[in-house]
């Protein structure tokens, strides 16, 4: 029912306008601020486009705890604080796999350049 172009398309166009046409006009001492604005816009666009992974993490946590439905990230964090999985190598490995997935998905939205610089731009998209 919403009008087109989508908000994501508008954000992408605004980002291009800022980066390609406005940033070069700014005095050097304000360019960092403009880059921060562009970064914030890009994060917002990627987060709007990438909502699905949070449900997948919750499902993975549910599977990890053998529960039906969503798992609880706070419980997982508390268990890791207490070393709850350290006596079982398979549980510890499964916990680490969730940590990797969570971190990579957050960076895919928050800082994909950093992920790429670490050789992980497409990590977690297959074989997980």
């Amino acid at each position, binding site marked *: 029912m919403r009008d087109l172009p989508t908000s994501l398309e508008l954000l992408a166009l605004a980002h291009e306008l800022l980066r390609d046409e406005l940033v070069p006009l700014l005095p050097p001492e304000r360019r960092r601020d403009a880059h921060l604005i562009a970064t*914030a816009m890009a994060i917002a666009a990627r987060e709007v486009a990438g909502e699905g992974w949070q449900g997948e993490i919750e499902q993975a946590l549910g599977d990890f705890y053998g529960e039906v439905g969503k798992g609880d*990230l706070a419980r997982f*964090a508390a268990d*890791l*604080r207490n070393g709850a999985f350290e006596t079982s190598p398979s549980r510890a490995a499964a916990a680490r796999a*969730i940590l*990797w997935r969570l971190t990579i998905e957050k960076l895919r939205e*928050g800082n994909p350049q950093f992920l790429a610089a*670490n050789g*992980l731009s497409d990590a977690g998209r297959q074989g997980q």
Partner: protein
Amino acid sequence: MGLGDRQVALAQFLAEASDAEQVEIARIALLPGGAIQENWGIDANFEGGRLAGQQRLVLRTDALTGVPSSLGRLEEFAVLRAAFSAGVTVPQPLFACDDAAVVGKPFLVMRRVAGSAAGRPITLDPSLEAVRSALAERLGRELARLQTIRPPRADLAFLSPYDGPAGQIAEFRAYLDRHPNPRPVLEWALRWAETHRPDPLPPVLCHRDFRTGNYLLDGIKLSAILDWEFAGWGDPDEDIGWFCCKGWRFGRLDREAGGIADRRHFYRGYEAASGRQLDPERVKFWEVYANIRWAVISMQQSDRYLIGGARSLSTAITGRRATECELELLSLLDPDGAAKQAAHA
């Protein structure tokens, strides 16, 4: 606060502190950077006294919002003076003042040193290519010199005694307990740190923000190590781990010593000057610790918006960097997992 409104009181303070007949401030301007502290550049003419003539100074005072655990300006002045006396390359500290009648809050004054601290030019400028290894070695030597300052010291009696990383680990956990979002990677890394604490070494003075971005290069020459507000007694390897932490490599992740060189150059300078061989396992512990600490500091920066209401995009967005630290923690503590992830990338 605009120091421009306080020029008369400031000039009078500078005159009294330096035994000058009169001080005329020709220029005063806020210097770039400094999220936690404000640094004001001052050009002044001193008539008589210990600083007679034209002087270029920096006045350092608190910004509107600070972060926990930073020293006050008078304490930072004492640390700076100790470092200067030990032969560390720092701006010469001149005066400190806690009389609110002068500029409204405590401040210190030091000589203004030429150079730039911006991280990316230092790691990426091709003209520095030939000198980066020597710079890393020099910084290692500087750190060793700093570590000749050891407790007890009457002039640094305000610094808390050091009893190992357990207290800090507890503080990080207490912070996470207050934070609304669970951070399982940080919890996992803190558990590792708790169970892998190295055998203690005698404490030394740690800078606690010794990194690329906090030293000045004047051309190709190291001209000053800056920002001493987090200094305190600590483990000799804490600054080593912080310097090598991935968060301070400014676009050159492959150069593990501050984005400027291979670790061996930094280590060589440190080991030669300190006479102590570095233990890779100890350094690994402190690098893990560095990533945890930087993650928490990043989140605290965002708290200045989330809790403190500071309307600053720069500080609000910094919390996102915590996840970069978490990726590095996973890479350091689960190298097999890192290889598996890379194979799938």
